[in-house]
């Protein structure tokens, strides 16, 4: 469908802005844009719950955190060329090689038609059913991880005071 190709081109352009732009705030905004476009692609792939979770968690909370840090630290724009002259060309060439290689590997295997999906595919009920039965241990460990992260962040913020 033409929608996917449009989204793909826009997200690649947005990702390039994230990596190339000199001002960190514009990079953060371009990343928000990329995340939003990826969420739309999730909707195209029938993963509705994950799409909205992406917007709420990633674009709505994590990126706001990034923006806070950028604004609080008053990040200056990067000077025009701060690193060794040949580095950029070499890394760009390596990135192109990486992309072509990865692309060739994943595109080589014949995929065939997508398997028929049950009617409640991608819904909250289906995700919850998987999460709380087969992957229950991972779920509990992840909640422990979040607790550790919260405590760690608070400890680090407090130490400076």
């Amino acid at each position, binding site marked *: 469908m033409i929608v996917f190709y449009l989204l793909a081109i826009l997200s690649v352009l947005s990702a390039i802005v994230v990596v190339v732009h000199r001002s960190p*705030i514009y990079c953060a*905004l371009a990343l*928000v844009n990329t995340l939003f476009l990826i969420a739309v692609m999730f909707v195209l792939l029938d993963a*509705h*719950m994950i799409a*909205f*979770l992406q*917007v*709420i968690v990633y*674009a*709505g*909370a994590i990126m*706001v955190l990034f*923006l*806070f840090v950028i*604004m*609080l630290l008053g990040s200056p724009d990067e000077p025009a060329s701060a690193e060794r002259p040949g580095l950029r060309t070499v890394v760009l060439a390596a990135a192109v090689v990486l992309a072509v290689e990865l692309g060739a590997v994943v595109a080589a295997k014949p995929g065939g038609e997508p398997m028929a999906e049950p009617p409640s595919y991608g*819904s*909250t009920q289906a995700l919850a059913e998987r999460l709380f039965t087969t992957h229950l241990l991972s779920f509990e460990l992840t909640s422990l991880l979040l607790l550790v992260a919260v405590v760690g962040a608070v400890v680090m913020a407090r130490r400076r005071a």
Partner: protein
Amino acid sequence: MDLLIAFAKCLVSLLIVLQVGVILLWVERKGSALIQDRVGANRANIFGGILPFNLGIVNTLMADPVKLFHKEDIVPEGADHFLHWLAPFLALFPLFLTYAVIPFGDVLVIGDTTINLQAVELNVGILFVLAMVSLGVYGVVLGGWASNSRYALLGGVRGSAQMISYEIAMGLALVAVVLTYGTLDLQAIVRAQGDLMWGVIPAWGVFYQPLALVILFIAGMAESKRAPFDLPEAESELIAGFFTEYSGSKQSVFMMADFVEVAIVAALVTTLFFGGWQVPYLYRDGFHFPGGFSIAVPSLLVTVLQVLSFLVKLFLFCWFQILVRWSLPRLRYDQLMDLGWKRLLPYALANLAVSAVLILLLQGWTVRS
């Protein structure tokens, strides 16, 4: 044909939110004057000697917007032009989108086509609302940053921190409602509120989740940064907070976002807790009272009654928010954060836990469609 119907529904939804936003501007000015025992805006008057008092309509609804749109658009020196232009757009746009999933009626039957009166029929409607509320933070953050001014940045940071803190309590209150009705789809929740508890009382959310209603209301008012939570735009302290450096059309967009958010909180409260478009005992073919008495009503009249009921409830809750704004003093910032994290969040969690246990124990306590 389907495309035309979808387009018409989106247009109606957009028009409702736009009209309500503008009317609230007038209601706020005259209503606050009523509450504060003064006259309010009364200079421009086209009804001359017909009415003994001045309704203030021409002044508020016609002269003010014209004045605002004709003001010079000033961008502060050293500010980022692109971000300065982008911030009002990001503040307003997600709020309009939220209205797309709010059902404003049951069905409209024209000939043999049945049109579901909800602009976008998502089966994860509540998640969509939460997502759009999360996106609303960007307008505040960027508005504060792009103004290159101390007051604006302070207001912006405070405002966005307040918004993301109260999103959590709001989300938990919404989850409690989802538990009760067993679905995330807003239209299905409103339809489920047509059932009767013990055959007499309509199964509105307020009877099942009163604490969630209170939490949602408080969190919603804090999200829209209205008094008593309006420290980010504290008129007597930070001038105008994060939109200090905005003038003309951009300022009017920010103010409009304020009123649209009032309308959204009111719409959410009506839809989830007060039956949305439901009129008690009114079904698609007429009234069916509990005693067995029933009145047949043509389907078009039923639809009109239901849409009217939605609008009346919407305005009732908008008026309530305006009342609260002009009655309570402003909360200090640390009191505000205290309320959000130390009081609303534990209460919302406790509400969720108690609801879940009650639902398990009393299987008949929910309204499952």
